[in-house]
Structure formats: structure tokens, C-alpha cells
């Protein structure tokens, strides 16, 4: 079982594994893998704690009921699975140091947190606007050859590459990296 302790697997093996996992979710759950709706439901559940049941009357939450559903369990599983994998390989460590970040911005943990928070807000907003994320559109939608998902996935990367080049190349560095 040494392979379970390896730090990295081939990206092709991992991708093929995710492909097979898609067969299983289609077959056993009648659902494609997705992650961002779980965050929308959780956001609704948190809002309900403060504002009560009238939150459920909002048009968005009538379509996406704030409750723990299969996708919420899937995302909880992702957390647990990644924890298990990183413990087995000995790569688990509590930190917010990242080599690429440090290369461009030096040791600036507060700035990194501000970026993560701002990026998270844009991502949460954008994933709901587009109706899916890198899992729901980027993998599950494209493998079904859905028109909406191919357009969304291309825009995820177009927007992501342009922003990364701008932030890391022009703003933090000098010229395109």
C-alpha cells in the first residue's frame, strides 16, 4: 500500500480516477460531481441563523434550498479525503506559505489573507453567476459536452490566466512572467 503514501500521483492517473468517479456518481446518485452549490446552500443556512426562516423565501433559496444535500456531503468528503491523503503522505502542515506567492510578494501573510478573501468573494459570486465551478462546469459539464459548461470553463481559464498574468507579472513583478 506504499502508493497511498506517495506525495504525488501522475496527473493522468488522478484524472482517470476522477473520470471513473463520475461514472459512479451518475450511476449511483444520478448526479454529476459539483462543489459550488454546497457553498451557496451553506451561505443560506448561515443567513438563516441570523435572520430566521424568511431567508428561505428569497427567490435564490427557493431554487437552491439552504439544507445539507448530497453535494454538501461530497464537499465535506473532499475535506476529509484530502486530509487523509496529506496525512498518509506526510505532507499535511498548517501553514499559509506558498512558494509562488513568496517569490512575487515576499513574506506578506496579511496581504495573502486579504487576497484570499477578496478572491473568494469574487469566486463565490462568479460561480453562482455562471451556475457552476471548476468541478460542476469544468469537469462534469465538459465531460457531458454541455454547451454552457464548455463556454464557462473556457472563460474560467481566460479570466484566470489574464488576471494571474496581470497580478503576478505586471503588478508584483516586472513584465510578463
Amino acid at each position, binding site marked *: 500500500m506504499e502508493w497511498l503514501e506517495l506525495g504525488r500521483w501522475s496527473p493522468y492517473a488522478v484524472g482517470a480516477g476522477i*473520470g471513473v468517479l463520475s461514472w459512479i456518481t451518475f450511476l449511483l446518485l444520478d448526479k454529476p460531481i459539483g462543489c459550488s452549490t454546497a457553498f451557496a446552500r451553506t451561505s443560506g443556512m448561515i443567513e438563516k441563523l441570523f435572520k430566521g426562516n424568511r431567508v428561505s423565501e428569497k427567490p435564490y433559496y427557493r431554487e437552491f434550498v439552504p439544507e445539507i444535500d448530497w453535494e454538501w456531503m461530497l464537499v465535506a468528503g473532499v475535506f476529509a*479525503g484530502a486530509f487523509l491523503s496529506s496525512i498518509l503522505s506526510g505532507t499535511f502542515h498548517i501553514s499559509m506559505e506558498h512558494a509562488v506567492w513568496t517569490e512575487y510578494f515576499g513574506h506578506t501573510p496579511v496581504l495573502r489573507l486579504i487576497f484570499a478573501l477578496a*478572491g473568494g468573494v469574487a469566486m463565490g459570486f*462568479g460561480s453562482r453567476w*455562471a451556475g457552476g465551478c471548476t468541478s460542476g462546469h469544468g469537469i462534469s459539464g465538459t465531460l457531458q459536452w454541455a454547451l454552457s459548461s464548455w463556454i464557462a470553463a473556457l472563460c474560467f*481559464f481566460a*479570466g484566470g490566466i489574464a488576471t494571474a498574468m496581470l497580478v503576478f507579472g505586471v503588478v508584483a513583478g516586472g513584465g510578463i512572467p
Partner: protein
Amino acid sequence: MKLYELHEKKGLQLLIALLCGVVFGFLLQKGGVTDYDVIIGQLLLRDFTVLKVMMSAVIVGSLGVYAMKSAGLVHLHPKPGSFGSSAVGGLIFGFGFAILGYCPGTVAGAVGSGAVDALLGGVTGILIGSGLFAAMYPRLRAGILQKGDFGTRTIPQALGINDWLVVIPGCILIAVLLVILENAGL
């Protein structure tokens, strides 16, 4: 037990979903895509791990899911879309993708691997952003989200041709792209 009976059993569905999630998270972590450096490396076009994982998942997933569809075992669930929703939302998502350095699935995996920025910044931000969207949804729904609507159509349906005429050449094209990337040393 028939498959449709299994789909009706709510508790069992939640348990299967949790187990699938554990496998998904395990794979994402082993693939390295729960790592900020790997995701930003992809967006800076230095490291193509993210694309390799996604593209091989699409090839394997697509062949199996369409084979099972042809055998009458599964139904497709393509998401509805429009240019106003898929393209504009996709670009906003992409901006967030590069600033945060994780996506909604990998952020959960990054938290599981110990990334503090993923938990304090990423998860919190995504929850706030989702809530903001829910608040603005009534106005957006009546406007931009409807622009250039194309429904839940798949590419084979849009072209009006047999599924396999898109699936097989599409998968071959993706495989060729992966071979080119590998040969270019990326």
C-alpha cells in the same frame, strides 16, 4: 435493488456522496491540485498539472458516461446556460480563481491539507460571495442572466448530430493536446 430505487433513498444517497467526496478529495490532493502553487502555476502557464487532471477526467468520464447513456443506464444532467450567465459569470469566476488560488472543490481539499489561507480567506470569501449573489439574484435573473440563452443543450444537440460524432473526435482532440503538452516538456 433497482438504480432508481437507490436514487430515492435519501440517507443512503448522503452516505454514498460522502464516500465519493472522500475519494474525490484524496485524488485532488494526490494530484497536487489542492496546492496553491500548482493552481497559480497553471494560470501563469508554467505548470500544466491542473489541465492534465481535468482533461484526462473529461476523456475517461465522457466515454463511460456516454456509453452508459447509450445503454440506458444513466441520464445526462447538462446545466442550463446563456452568454450572459456562462461567459460573464465564467470571467468573474476566473478573476477570483487567480486572486484566491483555489476553486470551490480544491479549497475544501486545501483546508484538509492544512492551508490556513484557504480556510480563513477562501471558504469565508466564497460564502460571502454566494450570499451576495443570492441577494442580487432577482435583479440579475430578469436581466443579464437571460442574454443569449441556449438552455441545457449539449454540443451534439446544438449541432444536431449523433452524440458519438462529438464524443469520439472530442476525446481524440483532447488526447492529442495532452500529448503535445507532454512532448513540449510542460
